[in-house]
């Protein structure tokens, strides 16, 4: 089966700084993939490259089996994106924005209008039809950005921090929507710092640290990897009653600095702080 997302030696440099370093990433079709990493690890840069917004310095990106550079317009029709800054047009209303996005993706007028109404209703934004997007709260803008990302029925959906600033009720709605999309065959590539949500939603995880992909696999695989293997001659330790959480796995992989020290500041620092 052709992977939905496949990168080979994907690299992006900004001057001397290497933001993404030879990443080989494979996301199978139908997976709910969580892409994790500390702040500045290269998550958003990777998403920008995977969605064609940023050119890689080197390496190859294949989306749904086709080369992204060679087929960018065709592939952009099959992907949906909620980018880091949401990239909404603030001086439009929600309805106007969704109608514009629908037309840009080639939907006919009738379908665009129908889906616009349904999505606004579903996202609980139908009552805000006279408000400009710039006057929306952050959570409302997130919901609108997600609605715009799915209006054309994408096969692959990229979400950069979709739950940031979204209230619990709206987050529940979004999660249900995303799970429904997975059930219907879509692939979702998600970054989030809320590891509980990632653990609950995602089937597979990739962890990027300092631009390098340091772990990739199902949560069970990562959990197995995080448990230290027995030394020769020793018996395997018994399975813990409470298996490692994704947060524990994540901290074990990236929670230390270059020297192996935990990032938590020692007690003696900031001693003036009451």
């Amino acid at each position, binding site marked *: 089966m052709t992977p939905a997302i496949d990168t080979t030696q994907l690299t992006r440099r900004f001057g001397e700084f290497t933001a993404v370093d030879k990443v080989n990433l494979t996301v199978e079709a139908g997976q709910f993939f969580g892409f994790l990493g500390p702040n500045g690890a290269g998550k958003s840069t990777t998403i920008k490259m995977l969605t*064609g917004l940023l050119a890689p310095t080197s390496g190859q990106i294949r989306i749904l089996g086709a080369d992204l550079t060679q087929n960018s317009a065709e592939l952009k029709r099959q992907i949906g994106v909620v980018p880091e800054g949401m990239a909404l047009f603030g001086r439009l209303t929600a309805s106007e924005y969704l109608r514009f996005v629908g037309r840009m993706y*080639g939907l006919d007028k009738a379908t665009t209008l129908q889906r616009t109404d349904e999505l606004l209703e579903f996202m609980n934004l139908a009552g805000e039809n006279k408000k400009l997007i710039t006057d929306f709260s952050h959570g409302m803008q997130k919901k609108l950005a997600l609605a715009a990302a799915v209006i054309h029925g994408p096969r692959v959906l990229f979400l950069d921090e979709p739950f940031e600033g979204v209230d619990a009720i709206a987050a529940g*709605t979004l999660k249900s929507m995303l799970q429904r999309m997975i059930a219907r065959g879509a692939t979702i590539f998600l970054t989030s710092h809320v590891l509980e949500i990632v653990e609950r939603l995602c089937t597979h995880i990739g962890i990027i640290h300092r631009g390098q992909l340091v772990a990739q696999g199902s949560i069970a695989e990562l959990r197995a990897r995080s448990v230290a293997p027995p030394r020769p001659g020793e018996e395997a330790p018994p399975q813990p009653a409470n298996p490692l959480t994704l947060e524990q796995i994540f901290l074990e992989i990236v929670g230390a600095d270059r020297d192996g020290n935990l990032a938590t500041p020692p007690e003696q620092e900031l001693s003036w702080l009451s």
Partner: protein
Amino acid sequence: MAELNDRSVPAPSTPAPGIPATTQLLAIAWLRWRIFVNGFRRQSSGSKVAGLIFTVVLRLILWPMFALMAIGPAVACGFLAWLAIAHRHPQGLVPLLAAVAILWQFVAVNGVSMAATLATFDPGSLLRFPLRFGRYLVLRLALGLLTPSTIVGCLALFAAAIGISVADSSLAPAAFLVLAVYAAMNIFFSRMIAVWLERWLATRRAREIFGMLMAVVIIGFQVLNFRGLKFHRPTGHPSAAPQNWLIAFLNGTHAFLNWLPPAFAANSIVGGHALARLAQFAALLLWTAIFFAALALRLHKQFLGEYLSEGAPGAAVTLRPHHLAAQAADNEPRSSSNEERATGNLQLAARTFISPTIATCLRKEWVYLRGNSNQIIAMLTPLIFVAIFARGMLARHPSYLLAGSVAYAMLGLLAGLYNIFGADGAGVQLYLLAPVRLRDVIVAKNIASLALLLTEAALAWCLVAWLATAPIPLATQVSTLFWVVFMLFANLAFGTLRSIQSPRKVSIAQARRMRSPSAGKTSGLLVLAILFGSFLLQIPVTMLCQHFDNLWLAALIFAPLAAVAVSAYALLLANVDHLILTHRDLFAEELCSD
């Protein structure tokens, strides 16, 4: 919340091949229209009605002035084209078309801030949609067609075509066709320059080199020794030696100029044999194609996701390892208590004769300025044109030359006074939270702006004094000084007021790429109105001086005006804390939102 049903989640689908170009282009045209219409809707809400009326009145006054600026060159161009053909001097078309090209680029360079003020969105934001490159290229070309340079240039060429047709109707088809291609070439050329400059100036080092080059060009004007240049002097004259080479150079370039687009365009219209004209037209088309290709090449890079800035977007700040941080902290002098820190601040204030808040804010403004090479370029560019003015039509009118040059040099910087909190963005909350007087913050920002403006004015003043052909009387210099004080403080007062009443967030990333205006549309128009108004004031004042044969009269008129402007600014400062507190909500809405 609506029930979650299958209909609400569009099913993943393989799209039908190809989106018609008209669908996407019409969608973008509709987007622009809605943004335009909704912009009015937002302005008209509640307390902004007064602002809307003010904006409309301001535009009613200013647009005719802009129209005159466009129509003036067009009428002149039409007349000169008619003159060249009717009086059988067809070669006169070459300098005329060259002048149009230079005018086009002059307006393009000076219209950047105006175009940015009128821009409603960045075409780059459309790249996430499934656009083909051809459509993106068409969009990029179409979206800037209403810039001042294109309007002025196209009107001038259209008038030239009419002038040629009136003089000789048989040349009409060729004139309209060739000048249409020439207009396209100028559009491609100015766009090409803009996108390549954006690319080259993306790195700080390149900007610094560019700044140095600009400085060298300015100094180069003096090396050319225009001051002593008199074409009618005999070659044996002692001062003629340095000028002979220049005249020889200018004569030598004549053959070279024949290979440039203005000559090809002119010769395509009036070049003698039909085959020769066709060949000239082909050469013009070749130039147009070269500029277009260079433009397309750059836009294709952008289309593929080029990122020009040096720093990674959102890259992590490299954290210092803890032991290094601790070591550094040990090496730094520590203030163990608030009292000690306060004493340090007072000492600082005593050293600088200004309050610690102002000193701290000034230091922050200096850090901002230090990292902004574009500002240096923006300051150097007008000086080149000032040097040209000093040798041009204003050279014999020192009364207007000095004030005009200083006003022109400061024009680009004045807009910054009208949105002093824009670059701070959400950081403005710190001023509201910290135990400081907001007046001090504003004074610090204004001191920083004044330092830049006065530097620019002083440089322009020195250039004019250096290059002017006629001596500038002391009375004129004194009156200009008062006029500058009046203009600066009037702009400071209005600008500070607008900064509080109508703040606008400035994207640093876009500002670096010169794509973001430093102030809103109304503020931009207000700057122009005050500048034009105060400059136009020079005309009746100068006439009055001539009538009474007393140049000091101007100083007597501008001195009280300057005093009034300074008083108005002081009055504003006295009330600025209260004014900001009453506009806290607006600050949060405009500067702190995403």
